[in-house]
């Protein structure tokens, strides 16, 4: 690892000033550091300055308000999210997702904010947050701005952060009554920690047809995507196994999968189809063996 300066600002404004002052240097922001340390140790990045967020209190905490929804400070670790009673109670799919991220040691160090800013597609949180209609708050000396998560995630390892901005918090609106969600994923082997496919489904189940349907696919695509065509197909309908299979086919058709050493585009498309169908069946309490393609 190359030598670097380590800085620990104590406020968003101070961090932003440092980032602006060092704009011409190779600077990296560190939250938990799980991803950054790996890239530095492999010399994929060789920063002259590492700016730690650890002492900024504004980035801490998890709060729930029935009108505003959930506020998750950017420094919230995956383990904190998984263990949070308000998250478990109001957004069980989010707690269940956080409980599966990587491995126990990484969950004790890695943060939600760090995960989103790194922009690695092969992780669990982005698609789950997208289906929950999450927004992010970005802070700098110019104040704070809130943007939907799908605008924040620009491309493969690329976000909408300005050079002097940091991610302050993640906001998730309250789920309407009767709305439930499931986060599922597919791992290529049981020992692998990075999902090959992630699927997050949110839908209202009360009454005749389903409502408030949101489907997000991640890990198989360069950035997580909302699947609007499949959402429209399910919206207002009574979901049975045949419709679940049709929606899964549509999702598989609509995505533009990654193709790399971990899986070809074709394999990913097939696995997305399987996981989407099973996830819809699970949420609507249908047998996964019904309506399966012959």
């Amino acid at each position, binding site marked *: 690892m190359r030598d670097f300066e380590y800085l620990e600002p104590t406020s968003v404004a101070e961090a932003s000033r440092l980032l602006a002052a060092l704009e011409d240097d190779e600077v990296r922001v560190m939250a938990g550091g799980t991803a950054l340390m790996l890239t530095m*140790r492999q010399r994929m990045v060789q920063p002259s300055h590492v700016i730690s967020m650890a002492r900024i209190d504004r980035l801490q905490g998890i709060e729930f308000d029935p009108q505003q929804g959930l506020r998750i400070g950017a420094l919230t670790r995956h383990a904190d999210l998984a263990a949070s009673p308000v998250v478990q109670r109001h957004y069980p799919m989010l707690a269940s997702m956080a409980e599966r991220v990587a491995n126990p040691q990484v969950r004790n160090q890695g943060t939600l904010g760090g995960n989103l800013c790194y922009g690695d597609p092969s992780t669990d949180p982005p698609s789950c947050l997208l289906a929950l209609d999450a927004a992010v708050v970005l802070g700098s000396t110019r104040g704070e701005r809130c943007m939907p998560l799908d605008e924040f995630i620009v491309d493969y390892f690329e976000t909408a952060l300005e050079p002097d901005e940091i991610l302050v918090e993640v906001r998730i609106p309250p789920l309407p009554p009767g709305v439930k969600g499931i986060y599922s994923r597919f791992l290529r082997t049981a020992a692998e920690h990075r999902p090959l496919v992630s699927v997050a489904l949110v839908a209202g189940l009360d009454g005749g047809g389903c409502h408030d349907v949101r489907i997000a696919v991640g890990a198989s695509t360069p950035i997580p995507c909302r699947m609007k065509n499949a959402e429209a197909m399910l919206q207002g309908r009574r979901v049975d196994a045949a419709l679940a299979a049709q929606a899964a086919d549509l999702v598989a058709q609509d995505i533009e999968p990654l193709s790399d050493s971990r899986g070809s585009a074709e394999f990913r498309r097939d696995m997305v189809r399987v996981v989407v169908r099973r996830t819809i069946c699970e949420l609507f309490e249908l047998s996964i063996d019904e309506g399966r393609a012959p």
Partner: protein
Amino acid sequence: MSTHRIECTVNGEARSVEVPAGRLLSDFLRDDLHLTGTKRGCETATCGACTVLLDGEAVKSCLLLAVQVNGRAITTIEGLAKGEQLHPLQQSFMDCGGLQCGYCTPGMIMASCDLLANNPRPTVEEVRRGLSGNLCRCTGYTQIVESILHAADAMNHGN
């Protein structure tokens, strides 16, 4: 490179050491404090041999900078025994044959400490999930899992 004074507690003892910003926690423990029970394995956060407890929670010390533990408490494998009295997990790994070459053992035991602190009566599945950040390349995992279940029993009866 900036240097930083680290004030932390290691195995109950207050430490104050000046380190460069780039010093890894694993190197700080092994080279600065001469606590070589913590092993460096893959050095890419895969194997878990370098697992230590940070404020009671398992972390990989090859993935943390020493500056990140300023003001915090670290427990390494050297901090588990009380004098001549081994920790129940250490005893159990010996009794159940939970090791062969022993290189992964400190990491396995530290990860298990965190697991059992949060879940004193884990199922086999929960033990396996709790060890999902640790690799063993010689014994296979059956006897490691047995060691942890056996230690859990011993610790529950001890209380």
